[in-house]
């Protein structure tokens, strides 16, 4: 299988992306984002969950949740490259929404190939939101690791690091069964399901751990009885989406910092005159471009070169995680004293990026996994 030369990014994808970019710029400029998510600076506040539901309803109207849902399930059946372009725009405005969580759930559901999974995909295309609840307390990213068990039709145990849990309608819950690992759909208000918000640094998303106390499930909720395989197949796409978010947010960090280099003057020169500031920002630009190229390459591989998808997605997330760290570091430092304050917008992005950096594995983790793929595992 081979990839298209242009990453399969054609006129339709460009129009979708350009419309999204304008819509988000018009509706969520950074000052509005700051008002929305940063109203309370108290570090001991109750974990907030700030997002604009009306904006989300408009996003659903624009069809973003239909993009990778197959046409037979009521979606528009577009490429992962198209979805990536939308996620990059969401990252660029640091959008608080269930968009990426729901897209992640869609990636998992389209690997299930069961009636209930297809039904849920259809509902997602119509605006239902979902997130994946599978990570154990140890924060292992291995698809085989999970702390939830199914006994007599009831779920017991907990899922951790669940993204945007308080913005979604449905949880995709992985659990151990007598025969292996299964994936169930669980509406958030169900009896025996307790969502406990995490106090996180990022102001543009929410995260929770979820306790299941004998929460009953039925066969109609069984999305897959091969959950581990499903999650492993979905993983390259999940990594690629986070990478796209990082690239979009990093571009905002770069451009915002570059603008400050043009207007702030010291020693009778704009700051950009000084190579101690100019060159690191050029390095950041190069890193962003590498991560973005690798991200679209991974997305395109998932669509058309699946044998290389895992390898390219590891490369993308490794590269993007480095970008997340470096962009956040330099954007605060180069804003000087003002960059250290709550009122300066750069911390909103730095915090989102630090979350992105470690989500589903940081750069070192991805490189270790990539080395296993390219060099074979370390011999004992």
């Amino acid at each position: 299988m081979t990839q298209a030369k242009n990453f399969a990014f054609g006129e339709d994808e460009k129009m979708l992306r350009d419309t999204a970019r304008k819509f988000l710029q018009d509706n969520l400029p950074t000052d509005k984002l700051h008002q929305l998510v940063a109203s309370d600076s108290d570090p001991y506040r109750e974990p907030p969950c700030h997002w604009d539901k009306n904006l989300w309803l408009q996003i659903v109207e624009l069809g973003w949740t239909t993009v990778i849902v197959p046409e037979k399930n009521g979606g528009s059946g577009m490429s992962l490259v198209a979805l990536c372009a939308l996620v990059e725009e969401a990252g660029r405005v640091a959008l608080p929404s269930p968009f990426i969580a729901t897209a992640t759930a869609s990636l998992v559901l389209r690997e299930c190939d069961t009636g209930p999974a297809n039904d849920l995909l259809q509902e997602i295309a119509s605006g239902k939101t979902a997130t994946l609840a599978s990570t154990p307390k140890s924060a292992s990213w291995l698809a085989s690791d999970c702390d939830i068990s199914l006994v007599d039709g009831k779920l017991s145990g907990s899922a951790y690091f669940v993204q945007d849990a308080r913005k979604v309608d449905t949880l995709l819950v992985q659990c151990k069964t007598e025969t292996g690992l299964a994936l169930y759909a669980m509406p958030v208000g169900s009896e025996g399901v307790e969502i406990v918000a995490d106090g996180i640094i990022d102001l543009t998303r929410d995260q929770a751990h979820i306790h299941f106390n004998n929460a009953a499930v039925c066969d109609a909720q069984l999305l897959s009885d091969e959950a581990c395989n499903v999650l492993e197949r979905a993983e390259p796409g999940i990594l690629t989406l986070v990478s796209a978010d990082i690239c979009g947010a990093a571009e905002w960090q770069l451009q915002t910092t570059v603008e400050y280099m043009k207007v702030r003057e010291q020693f009778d020169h704009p700051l950009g005159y000084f190579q101690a500031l100019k060159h690191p920002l050029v390095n950041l630009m190069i890193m962003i471009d590498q991560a973005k190229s690798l991200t679209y390459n991974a997305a395109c591989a998932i669509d058309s070169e699946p044998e290389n998808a895992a390898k390219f997605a590891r490369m993308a997330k490794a590269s993007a995680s480095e970008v997340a760290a470096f962009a956040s570091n330099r954007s605060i430092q180069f804003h000087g004293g003002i960059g250290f304050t709550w009122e300066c917008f750069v911390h909103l992005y730095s915090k989102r990026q630090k979350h992105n950096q470690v989500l589903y594995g940081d750069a070192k983790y991805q490189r270790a996994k990539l080395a296993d793929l390219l060099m074979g595992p370390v011999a004992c």
Partner: protein
Amino acid sequence: MSQENKKDSLEQASFRTYCRDWLTQHDAGTPSTRLPQSAIEIMHPEQLDYLRKWQGEAYAAGLIGCDYPVAEGGGGRKDCQAIANQEMARAGKPFLPNILGLGMAAPTIHFHAQQALKERLLPGLFSCKDVWCQGFSEPGAGSDLANVQTFAERKGDKWIINGHKVWTSLAHFADWMILLLRTDKSSKYDGLSYFVVPIKSALGKGVTVQPLIKITGETGFNEVFFDNLEISDGYRLDEVGKGWKVAQTTLLHERGAGPMVTPSSGRGNSKASAVGDAYALINLAKDSTRDGQSAANDPLLRDQIMQMIIRQEGSKQGARRAKVEGLCEHPMRIPLQAKLVMSEVRQDNAAVAIDILGAHSTLYINDENAPAGGEWPLAYMNSYGITIAAGASEIQRNILGERVLGMAKSK
């Protein structure tokens, strides 16, 4: 089916088939001597003769100068040079020796010379009958290139040239030179003019070439002295005082960001061809040990190797993305990074190789026990040639920060 041929135009597809057939049938032969790592390291006539013969045959077969007009000795094709390059690389053919001609002189002549001069010079450049070199840098004009002081004084329809060029790769073989010099001392940028100069025929008659020895111990680049060299005004490109503008065409192509695709081939099958590539580090680690254990088991080396593979793949995918306008923030953003990133990745690849080799990296090309013939430490030293030449990495970062990101010009 390969990735490249999926989106070929009809012309490209049939040309690719032609190239592949010719390259399958054509044998470049075995060199009688060790080949250097790249064209700018060519030291001996035997190396040049072998490579020149190969370039001449590839040109005769239509694989070089494909996109130039037929009248200029080109193939008159559209977007076919990249196809020929891919196929020559795939076939593992040796590199092309006349790289300064193909990559810099040819596009500059094409865009700025009178028609008759193009028709006279380009066929011999493409075939490698004439070797070209580049007379830009001077002892006092390196990163600040516009400070060149080599001076041409007008005398009727002649010019009298006096001055000193340096870091001139291949000048010891060159028939021709592209020459940036000063025709007006009162204006820095507008005082420059651009010429093509037949230097071999002027050796001992106003031109002196002296070799410089590189940190590798190899020769290959030179100093060139001009002492009252008299040349015709017919060798001038563009107008008097427009030399800086013409030089931008040269530099843009030198950095891989120009509109004409530079003909390039593979890296042959010599020991030298094994070095430079990040994926080659995997086998290097598997063939190396640390305290008796495979170096491929060392988690820190594994991480370093993966970092290099990711950066190299990132550059490759960047070249692909640069062609998709909708996925680029600025049209020159990736093209102007190409030389900077490529040169630093190659340098760091070699540095990681040296880490992997450990004490064996102390063995050089003159030691029969050196792993890979000592080519990795040689490649490491040679890599500075690329991070310094054509605008040092620090100058490239200025250019990117100013032209792409729009920050204030640094001094």
